[in-house]
């Protein structure tokens, strides 16, 4: 039997999607350093929230928000669009869980 979904579980899903977005953004060779610096900066922020609040159970609307966000970035195939979302994705995810970006 599994326990309630926690914020750490949810952020784990978000970070997996974020890693895929980073890999897609790396296809823009001229922006490789920016992509990775940006990804590192936001990953650290999301990981810090997960470390601080990871044990909290999450409500259905919050889980739905992150799942919706993961679905949204899963549609992206253009690496330039992926770079836009390397900044946007964490902001949306953090707002969904009640954190300031």
């Amino acid at each position, binding site marked *: 039997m599994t326990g309630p979904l926690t914020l750490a579980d949810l952020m784990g899903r978000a970070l997996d999607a974020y890693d895929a977005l980073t890999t897609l953004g790396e296809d823009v060779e001229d922006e490789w350093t920016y992509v990775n610096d940006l990804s590192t*900066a936001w990953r650290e922020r999301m990981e810090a929230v997960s470390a601080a609040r990871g044990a909290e159970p999450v409500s259905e609307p*919050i889980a739905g*928000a992150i799942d*919706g966000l993961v*679905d949204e970035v899963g549609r992206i195939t253009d690496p330039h669009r992926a*770079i*836009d979302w390397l900044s946007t994705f964490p902001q949306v995810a953090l*707002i969904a869980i009640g954190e300031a970006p």
Partner: protein
Amino acid sequence: MRFQDAVKDARAVVYAGIQADPLVARAATLLADATPAQRVLARAVMNGETTDTDGWRRMFPTLFDEGDPARTARSAAILDASLDVAERGEQVRSQFRGALVEELTAILLARRVPPDVIRRERRVLFDGVRAEVHPYDVTVERAGAAEVYDCKWGARGINADVLHQLDDARVHATEVDEPIRVALVVFDAVRSCEVRLAQQTAPTAGTTLVALETLDRLATRPGAAA
């Protein structure tokens, strides 16, 4: 130091049509009184793949909470306007997003300075200095208290050319004892802008960054001083 309208080439004429589109004013007016989270909603939708209203509502549960009808109504209006931009197609929406940041900047500035001193697409000229080809997006033209703004949709738009142009204006103005404040307005998070700025070798010390979280400073602080 003096200001001058930019040359109206073909690109400028097309872009002027975008700037004049009522959708730009509608979205900018809504975003001028939006919370940072509502501004992120607009950014996400205008960058997004899906145009499904319910999908976006699902991604922003805190903005569509039935316990706060006023916030939900404004969020819904912002979502509608943002979807209208997103549905224009990739190339056109890119132009709309740029025009939107400029319009939003002008609206917020007009809460602090008289609207007639706020101008768009202007060059700054100095005697003996070759004029920049590209105009500044928004200017506040007041003797002794001029302000110059370049506007970007995302942090990735920050580049050496933009930073040099802003800093050149500041340096030349200082040389003629007419100091101006120069700022970069970016509709993106401070964190992303700082990552981008850290990669630049162009001068940044004299340029103020106004990011998505600090946009409201345009309405209260000269040059959006930090």
